[in-house]
């Protein structure tokens, strides 16, 4: 028996839960406090919340899993973060300003207010929830794997995911974003240590970085460059752009933008966040080392944990697993909270305008549990690669980008009809590509094609409908 690793993992889960519960004690919980932390967070907390977006199970298991199974194309994960921060310098301050001026709470609020359209807000909310589910699922799949490996098979993945979903839903309903922020502090410290240890120890075990990559390059020629499995240069460029633009389009990331104290926070973060990305390298090194330590795994998501299990003692497997659990809980809770708020505030309230704030709040908390249950069902029935799930979500949320960009910088270039058709057509294209299981078309990411079509449609439909709107405003 390897009880020590399980004890440590459950201790981590319990600690996360206690922190979540303590965080809400001294705050009066209204909906604004619950979801945007009263808009009073300084640079440090915003930084931590945004860093929570970087270190998720996706990076921990998905990033190492991709290094292990896909090789060269993994560099896109490094690059898209930088692209996202470059854009954030220009994009986030006006979004924050607009949100502050109009007291916005969620992402659909932005569309609702900007275009004065209840149904546009509802559409954005629905797409947001649909996109969050595969993202949440990627966190849960990873979490289940960690618990399974750390218990050396005693607890299977399904039970592990079930336990995790209950913990997540429990503390999200009680403490909202404050719970996330405090757990994020704990997570960031633990994960940094773990990633450095694993990223150094595993390559050292196989003879050091230089020898490791030379061996891999000899054994698998071409594996360390772009072009593996059809993922060449066009795939790289389109995917980096798609995910870089989509980065802040996630409902939870867009909502986290509102929590900043002032707009300069974003411009300053754009300097430091690209460097923060460098820590990812150690995750990749661990994944590449796993090629030589545990070759031939069926499930590449397992690469990191399998290699760790082979080399480290059980208690250390527990610590590493615990870090992985926190990696899933922090972003997972943000996403769950966003999904609950989206459904309550941006779907339920517009449809039932007479609902009281208390009712809406109750709906939000109930929906957290329903979304958790739906995600659990998907997690049990699907074994997709963690990165593939995340890319699917990105394809959806990036469809908001053309409308947001043009509505901020292209004064009046987008009409209500243009925004609505663009998003709808983009999303339907993504659904079509997903159902027909196409991820590449002429070497380019299919989400990127959807984004291009979306851009063109927004411009065309807006150009056609703008005159009508202008005429109306003259006659009125």
């Amino acid at each position, binding site marked *: 028996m390897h009880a020590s690793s399980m004890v440590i993992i459950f201790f981590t889960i319990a600690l996360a839960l206690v922190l979540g519960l303590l965080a809400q004690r001294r705050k009066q919980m209204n909906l604004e406090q619950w979801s945007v932390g009263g808009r009073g967070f300084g640079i440090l907390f915003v930084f931590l919340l945004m860093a929570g977006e970087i270190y998720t199970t996706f990076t921990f298991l998905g990033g190492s899993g991709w290094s292990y199974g896909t090789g*060269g194309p993994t560099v896109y994960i490094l690059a898209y*973060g930088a692209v996202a921060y470059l854009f954030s*310098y220009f994009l986030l301050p006006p979004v924050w300003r607009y949100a502050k001026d109009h007291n916005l709470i969620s992402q659909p609020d932005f569309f609702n207010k900007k275009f004065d359209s209840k149904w546009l807000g509802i559409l954005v909310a629905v797409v947001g929830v649909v996109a969050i589910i595969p993202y949440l699922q990627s966190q849960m799949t990873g979490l289940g794997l960690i618990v399974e490996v750390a218990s050396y098979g005693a607890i299977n993945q399904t039970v592990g995911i079930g336990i995790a979903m209950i913990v997540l839903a429990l503390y999200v309903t009680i403490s909202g974003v404050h719970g996330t922020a405090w757990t994020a502090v704990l997570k960031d410290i633990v994960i940094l240590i773990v990633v450095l240890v694993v990223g150094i120890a595993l390559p050292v075990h196989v003879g050091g*970085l*230089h020898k490791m*990559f030379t061996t891999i390059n000899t054994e698998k020629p*071409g594996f360390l460059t772009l072009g593996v499995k059809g993922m060449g240069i066009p795939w790289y460029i389109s995917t980096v752009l798609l995910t870089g633009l989509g980065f802040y389009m996630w409902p939870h990331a867009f909502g986290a933008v509102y929590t900043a104290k002032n707009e300069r926070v974003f411009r300053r973060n754009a300097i430091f966040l690209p*460097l923060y990305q*460098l820590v990812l390298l150690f995750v990749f090194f661990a994944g590449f080392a796993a090629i030589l330590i545990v070759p031939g795994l069926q499930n590449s998501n397992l690469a990191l944990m399998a290699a760790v299990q082979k080399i480290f003692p059980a208690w250390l497997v527990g610590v590493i697993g615990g870090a992985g659990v926190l990696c899933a809980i922090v972003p997972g809770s943000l996403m769950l909270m966003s999904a609950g708020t989206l459904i309550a505030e941006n779907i339920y309230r517009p449809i039932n305008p007479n609902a009281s704030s208390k009712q809406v709040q109750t709906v939000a908390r109930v929906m957290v549990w329903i979304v958790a249950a739906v995600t659990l069902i998907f997690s049990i029935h699907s074994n997709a690669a963690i990165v593939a799930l995340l890319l699917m979500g990105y394809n959806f949320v990036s469809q908001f980008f053309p409308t947001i960009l043009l509505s901020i910088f292209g004064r009046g270039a987008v009409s209500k009809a243009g925004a609505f058709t663009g998003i709808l057509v983009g999303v339907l294209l993504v659904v079509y590509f997903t159902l027909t299981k196409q991820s590449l078309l002429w070497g380019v990411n299919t989400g990127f094609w959807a984004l291009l079509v979306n851009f063109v449609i927004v411009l065309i439909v807006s150009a056609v409908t703008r005159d009508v709107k202008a005429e109306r405003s003259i006659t009125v």
Partner: protein
Amino acid sequence: MSIRWLTLVPLIGLLIGVIFANRATPIVLGMPFLFFYVVLWLILTSVCMAIVYKFDPTNRKED
């Protein structure tokens, strides 16, 4: 000319430059060349953004 145009430099480096950097060797600082190249541009991104931040008049205003 606004200092903000400097943002385009890392963007081009990361997206277009990769066409010429897509190779496994030489291994630099223990990394395959492609990885080293992207890492280099991450650092340069940070440097460029620091310069943009410093000279962008928007950031000199008081809050």
